[in-house]
């Protein structure tokens, strides 16, 4: 009804949604995502943790699940410890993989025997069997069925890792989505009613966000990193070299798990982003109070600055986890020639290449609703440390999940809405990479704005903002000695860059390494200077007085 009021369009006929449209009333389609009951919680298993274990994890994460634990033959736990863990966690479903097709069956059967001994019960509802998806060595299907067929709701799909060189995640992901609808969602109140309304399958919310990120990367042929920072969790999505990855940092968030951000990053790492000195007990109590009163809003500037400092650390830690996970397949045998010895991408190496990254998209309250867009841009830059030339954007009103589902029905419409209404273009970060010396010019820049040409030098330690609109602007960047801006060390780069609601941020604070001063007074002075340059906290001066 509220939507009817807002849109000025009749959408409901009694309790029913009018679909398809009839003239000026109704909607074309109705779609929905779900994060009911804290989302889809899964446990996955594989024989070797870093191989089939990781493939299973990738499949589950890509489908929008939270992975509670990865069971593996080589995870270092004793059998009874694994059994206890399964009983204790009570996941919504289990994905079991292991072995390449035609390989040894013993290890994956051993894992099935652990599951059999645990006789796991689902998290919600006592009256149905736990769904288990088997996506391992096809030769082990029969013995797996003998062990799990009776006590669980066992489904079999194609092997997730048919050969060491190949990963086949889609059949497992599709099955996870099916089971999510049939089993997990079926436990949620109101599910049947919702099912009757929707024109497309209900997807787990993060799975839907992943879909739209994939579509954008595909449509524009670019590398993208998307991040969604919530109260309890932070999801990171990436597409590099056409490979999609999603990670969820289950306990890195801005309210429910904010104390965990503090615990994992440490007080000093949070405090390093705060441009004034703080008492440790006071800070920890304040953060603790945010955890237990998660819906409160920072009223004072001081409180806002502390929240945004924590956000930087939550984003940084989540991205670290993502980099470790988004890797080339491990265990792949490669033949190497002499030339490969000089430049090789070994198995297990991260796919995340910040110099290659074209666009960084932020979502979640602390980024989308930051009082100033400049603050969102700063948080993204400080946490992700993009290199070379990277466009920055935030999701305006958390429209990405809905667009994700829409993209499965109408990709073109989804991409268009994403570009026009969903994204708020903040601008572009220009960050030269390489070791510089104090006061060294890292970059000479020439940027043609619509009505003027701006040129200048960016020195090590400087952060500058050039207000510029979101349109293609001709630019020339000449890096200093030993510095790379994207075309290679010492190579001049002529390209088009885009501004946005913030503009073009020239970041000379260093990459590889990026170092913040350990010396308190010096650090606070620099933070104040950068804040002033980038229009981050215009009232900061008054706070210090």
């Amino acid at each position, binding site marked *: 009804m509220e939507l009817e*009021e*807002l849109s000025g369009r009749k959408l409901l006929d009694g309790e029913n949604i009018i679909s398809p449209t009839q003239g000026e009333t109704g909607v074309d389609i109705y779609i929905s995502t779900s994060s009911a*009951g*804290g989302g889809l919680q899964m446990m996955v298993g594989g024989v070797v943790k870093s191989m089939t274990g990781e493939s299973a994890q990738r499949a589950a994460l890509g489908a929008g699940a939270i992975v509670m634990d990865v069971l593996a033959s080589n995870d270092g736990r004793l*059998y*009874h410890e694994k*059994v*206890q863990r399964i*009983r204790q966690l009570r996941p919504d479903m289990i994905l079991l993989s292991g072995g390449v097709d035609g390989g040894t*069956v*013993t290890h994956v*059967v*051993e894992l099935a*025997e*652990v599951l*059999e*001994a*645990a*006789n796991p*019960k689902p998290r919600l509802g*006592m009256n149905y069997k736990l769904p288990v998806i088997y996506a391992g060595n096809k030769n082990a299907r029969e*013995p797996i069925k003998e062990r799990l067929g009776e006590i669980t709701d066992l489904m079999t799909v194609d092997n997730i890792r048919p050969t060491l060189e190949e990963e086949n995640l889609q059949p497992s992901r599709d099955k996870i989505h099916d089971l999510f609808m049939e089993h997990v969602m079926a436990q949620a109140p109101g599910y049947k009613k919702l099912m009757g309304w929707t024109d497309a399958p209900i997807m787990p919310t993060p799975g839907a966000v992943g879909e739209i990120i994939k579509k954008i990367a595909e449509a524009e042929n670019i590398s993208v990193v998307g991040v969604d920072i919530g109260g*309890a969790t932070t999801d990171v999505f990436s597409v590099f070299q056409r490979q999609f990855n999603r990670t969820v940092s289950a*306990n890195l968030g801005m309210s*429910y*798990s904010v*104390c*965990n*951000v503090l*615990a*994992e990053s440490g007080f000093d790492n949070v405090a390093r982003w705060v441009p004034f000195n703080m008492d*440790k*007990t*006071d800070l*920890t*109590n*304040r*953060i*603790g*109070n*945010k*955890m*237990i*009163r998660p*819906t*409160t*809003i*920072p*009223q*004072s*500037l001081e*409180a*806002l600055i502390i929240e945004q400092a924590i956000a930087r650390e939550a984003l940084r830690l989540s991205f670290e986890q993502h980099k470790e996970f988004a890797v080339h397949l491990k265990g792949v045998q490669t033949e190497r020639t002499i030339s490969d010895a000089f430049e090789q991408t070994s198995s297990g190496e991260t796919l995340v290449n910040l110099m290659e990254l074209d666009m960084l998209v932020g979502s979640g309250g602390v980024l989308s*609703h930051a*009082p*100033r867009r400049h603050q969102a841009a700063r948080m993204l830059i400080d946490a992700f440390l993009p290199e070379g030339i990277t466009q920055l954007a935030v999701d*305006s*009103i958390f429209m990405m999940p809905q667009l994700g589902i829409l993209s499965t029905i109408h990709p073109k419409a989804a991409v268009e809405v994403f570009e026009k*209404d969903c994204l708020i273009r903040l601008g572009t970060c220009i960050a030269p990479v390489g070791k510089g010396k104090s006061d060294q010019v890292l970059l000479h820049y020439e940027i043609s704005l619509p009505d003027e040409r701006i040129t200048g030098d960016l020195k090590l330690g400087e952060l500058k903002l050039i207000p510029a609109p979101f349109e293609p602007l001709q630019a020339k960047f000449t890096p200093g000695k030993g510095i790379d801006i994207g075309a290679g060390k010492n190579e001049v780069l002529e390209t088009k860059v885009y501004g946005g609601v913030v503009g073009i941020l020239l970041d000379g604070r260093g990459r590889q390494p990026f170092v913040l001063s350990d010396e308190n007074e010096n650090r606070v002075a620099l933070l104040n200077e950068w804040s002033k340059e980038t229009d981050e906290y215009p*009232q900061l001066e008054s706070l210090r007085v």
Partner: protein
Amino acid sequence: MNGRKRLTNIPNWRVYVSRSYTPGLKILANTKISKKRQLPMKGNVHLKIGDKVKSNEIVASTELPGNVQMLNVANKLNIEPENVPECMLIELDESISKGQIIAESKGIFGMFKNQLKSPIDGTLANVSEITGQAILAEPPVPVEVDAYTSGTITAVEEEEGVTIETEGVLVQGILGIGGENRGVLKVVTASPNDELTAEVINESHKGMILLGGAFLNMDTFRHAKKMGVAGIVSGGFDYTDLSKILGYSLGVAITGSEKIGPSLIITEGFGKIGMAERTYALLSANEGKFASINGSTQIRAGVIRPEILIPDELNHGECNDFKEADLAISEGSLIRVIRAPYFGRVGKVKSLPPELMKMESETMVRVAEIEFEDGSNEVIPRANLEMILT
């Protein structure tokens, strides 16, 4: 994007915003309390609808599967996995005792046989001819669920649990640690703004639930634990002290399973914060009564707050149950601020302006104008207010 702007165009906008729902903690003197007591897995429910129960009475019980041990019989007997089943000397589900020979290899011409003894008492749960393993299960672990509070059984979920209803006092805290405990309620501070110190706690407080004031430190908690106190209720506590008690930093507020001695409930938050007058007064008025305390907290979907519950079976009067509408803040409502810079202060809502207002942080929010007890006025985000139910 333009949703917010359009809303302000609705002529009777004020109707929508004159009330603001920011549920507070329940601090109820005389209410109907309903408690679900459930088994972790299916089992037996021992009572029926209408039965009266005492707080320590067992209402349902079950047996959790015992620990399992896996024995690699093939390796130990030096035989092929497929030969394991025929080498087992006992049947599936048969009882075994520690030291009993449970498998034996065929040997060579009946000689040089290898034997395998059971490392546990239990049963043989499974034997695999593929992995060559035998799964041994220890005896099941009995689990009992008690009533937690006295009252009457009003619902039975077959094989799963019961619902107990009673009437009495219900006070929720903001965060607790430690699970369920019981004891007689004892007031040990002179006012809600006093700090609870070790000197006032002695052996006579063993098994009791102590009502403190604004704060207690780590030493006081340790002393209370030593004296055998069953539970402590305090306004505030330091986050760093909480980490010391738990042995880790509490990253997510999901608690209840820690074994820390007394259950600890804080009613206001972290730091030195006077307990809300109303909470303190209500609990003090019930000093000497038998109370149940539960520190279990879950601040996430399906929120669970820690609680102190004082059943009053003699009460047959009208229950003053709160209604959803009672939780709506409107002009004249008594509120408490739950975030800095006015954290903990109590005041009255003077007005609820409909427009979004810019705070010092430049955040645009819906606000309330508050008149504090000292007569001063401040504008505060509505999200930072909590209703005090009166």
